[in-house]
C-alpha cells in the first residue's frame, strides 16, 4: 500500500512562497512603522512609548495642515472627474475611429505614462510661467489631469478592446439607437474599468508629490508637499499621522476599485482591468 499517502505534485518551487513572503515584509515593514509611530505618545521615532492620538489631534488643530488636506482632496477630485471624462472619450476614439490618426494617437498617448515625472513637472512649470498663470491649486490640477488622462485611457481602452462588438450590434439589432446602445450596453459593460480608472486616478493624484511640488503656488499647498518640507525640517510624528491617514484613504480607494465591480456581480475586477487582465 505504498499509495495510501498521495505523492506530492512535482516541482512546486519551495523557495517561491518564502521569497514572496519576504517580499511582502519588505514592502509593508515601513508602512507598519509609520502607522505604529503615528500613535506614539512621545516625539520619538525610535522608541514606542505608549499609545496616544495626540499627533492626530495636532494635525486637526493645525489650520494650515487642514487647509492642505482639503486642497489635496479638491485637487484629486477635480483631477479624477476631468481625467476620467477626457480619458474615456479618448479611449473610445482610439478603439473605434479607424482613421490613421487614431492609429498613431494610440501609441503617442502612452508617452505621458513613460515620461519621468520631473520632466512633466518641469515642462508644466515652464508652460504656466510662459502663459503667465499664477501657480495655484488650479495649476496643480491641470498638471495632474494631464498625466492622468493617458492612464485612464489605457485602462478603459483595454476593456473596450476586449468588448465583443457583437454585444453592441445585438443592442442595435434589438432596436436601440446608437446613443441608446452607448447608454444601455456599452457604458454598463465598461463601467468597472471606468470606476477603477477613476478611483486609481484619485489615489495617484491624492499623493502625487513631484508634479505638485513644481506646480503648486503658496498656501494652501497639497499635503504631500507639506510632508516634504516637514521631512526636511525635523519630522514630528504628525507626518506619520498624515501618512497613516493617506494610507487609509488610498487603501480604501484601491479596495473599492478592485472589489466594487465584483460586489456588483461583474466577472472582472478593477484590478484585473488595471493589470490588463480579465476575470479571476
Amino acid at each position: 500500500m505504498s499509495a495510501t499517502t498521495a505523492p506530492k505534485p512535482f516541482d512546486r518551487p519551495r523557495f517561491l512562497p518564502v521569497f514572496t513572503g519576504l517580499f511582502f515584509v519588505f514592502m509593508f515593514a515601513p508602512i507598519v512603522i509609520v502607522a505604529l509611530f503615528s500613535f506614539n505618545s512621545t516625539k520619538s521615532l525610535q522608541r514606542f512609548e505608549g499609545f496616544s492620538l495626540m499627533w492626530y489631534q495636532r494635525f486637526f488643530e493645525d489650520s494650515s495642515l487642514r487647509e492642505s488636506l482639503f486642497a489635496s482632496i479638491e485637487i484629486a477630485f477635480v483631477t479624477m472627474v476631468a481625467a476620467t471624462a477626457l480619458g474615456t472619450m479618448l479611449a473610445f476614439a482610439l478603439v473605434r475611429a479607424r482613421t490613421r490618426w487614431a492609429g498613431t494617437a494610440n501609441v503617442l498617448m502612452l508617452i505621458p505614462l513613460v515620461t519621468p515625472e520631473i520632466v512633466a513637472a518641469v515642462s508644466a512649470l515652464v508652460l504656466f510661467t510662459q502663459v503667465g498663470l499664477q501657480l495655484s491649486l488650479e495649476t496643480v490640477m491641470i498638471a495632474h489631469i494631464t498625466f492622468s488622462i493617458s492612464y485612464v485611457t489605457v485602462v478603459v481602452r483595454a476593456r473596450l478592446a476586449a468588448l465583443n462588438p457583437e454585444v453592441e450590434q445585438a443592442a442595435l439589432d434589438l432596436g436601440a439607437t446608437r446613443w441608446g446602445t452607448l447608454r444601455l450596453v456599452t457604458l454598463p459593460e465598461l463601467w468597472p474599468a471606468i470606476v477603477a480608472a477613476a478611483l486609481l486616478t484619485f489615489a495617484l493624484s491624492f499623493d502625487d508629490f513631484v508634479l505638485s511640488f513644481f506646480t503648486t503656488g503658496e498656501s494652501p499647498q497639497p499635503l504631500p508637499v507639506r510632508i516634504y518640507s516637514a521631512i526636511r525640517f525635523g519630522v514630528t510624528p504628525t507626518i506619520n499621522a498624515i501618512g497613516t491617514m493617506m494610507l487609509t484613504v488610498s487603501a480604501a480607494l484601491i479596495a473599492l476599485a478592485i472589489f466594487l465591480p465584483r460586489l456588483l456581480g461583474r466577472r472582472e475586477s478593477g484590478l484585473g482591468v488595471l493589470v490588463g487582465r480579465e476575470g479571476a
Partner: protein
Amino acid sequence: GVGNSGGGSKKETEKVVKAKVDGDLVYFNWSEYLDPALIKKFEKQYGVKVRQSNFDSMSSMMAKLRSGNRYDVIFPDQSFAPKLIAANQLLKIDKSKLKNYDNVWKFFHDPAYDPGAEHTVPYGLYATGVIWNEDKISGMKGSWADLFRTDAKGKIYMLDDFQECLGMANLRHGFDLSTVDPDEIEQSKQMLIDQKPLLRGYSTDDIQNMINGNAWIHHGWNGDVVNLRNQVKNPESYRFEKCKEGIPVGSDTMAIPANAEHPGTALLFIDFMLDPENASQNVAYFGYPMAVTGAEAAFAKIAKDDPAVAITVDDVKNGQQFANLTGKDKALWDRAWTEVKAA
C-alpha cells in the same frame, strides 16, 4: 523670488492706534510656534477671541497678504520684514503704547532689518553653529574647523541650505558672511567641495540625524538642540557651540499689517508677549530664546543652563545676519552651490 507686489500707501502705515481692545485678534503664525496656553490666557485676560491660522513658509505668508487676507498680527522673519516695510504693508508701531517695550533688548531698538524698529518687535532668536554628541566625539574647538574633523569622517552633516553652507565657509575664511566677491565665493565653494569626503550627507533634519546616531557632528541651529535634548535620555551629551569665527544670527519679529482690522487688540497682544513672565512661558514652550529681558532664565533652564545654546545680546551684536541676495549675486551663490552639490 517674491517681488514688492501689492504695496500699500505710506499714509495708512502711519495711522494712529490706541492700545485698547477693538475686536477679536486675527493671528497668523507658524504652527507650534507659540504656546497655546498663552493664547487662552490672553483671551481670558482681555475677553477677546483669538482667531488663529498658520503658514508653512515665509513666501506663503507673503502670498496670503498679497491676496488681500487681513490679519492683525503676523510673524515675518528678518529677511522678509524689510520687504513688507518697503511695500508699506506694516503699520508703524507706537512704542509708547507698549508697557513692556523696555524689556526688549536695546540692540533691537535699532536692528539692521528695521532701522529704529519702527514697524517690528523682535520675537524668536536663532543662531547657526555646530551640534555634536559628546558621547561619540570630544575635544571640540569652538570653531567651524570642527566640521572638518577627519576623526569624525562619515559622521558629519552639513545643513542642506546654500546660504548656511556658503555662509559657514565665508565665515571660516574670515570673509563677510554674505560676500558677493566672486573670488571669495570661489574659495568658499572649493572649501565645501574639499569637505565632502568627510561628510555623511547634507540635511536640514539635524534633530533626527543626531538622535538616530547617523551624525556625531552636525551643522545646525541652536533651537534644535533644545528640542533635541527634550527627546533623548542623555540630554547633556548633546552640545552646541557658537564658533569663534562668527555665526549667522537670525530673528523673527511680530508686526501689524497696515490693513489690520483690530490693530488695538494687536498692540495689546504684542505687549502681552513682551511681558517677561509670558515670554518665559513661551520660551519654555517653543525652545528658542526671545530678546526679552527677564526671559533669559527661562531659556537657560530649558537649555539645561548651557550658555552655548543661549543667545546673548553680545551674540546678536557680533553675530552676522544673512543679506537678502538678489539678481547676479544670488546667481553667483547658486552656481557655486550647484557645483558643490554636483561635485
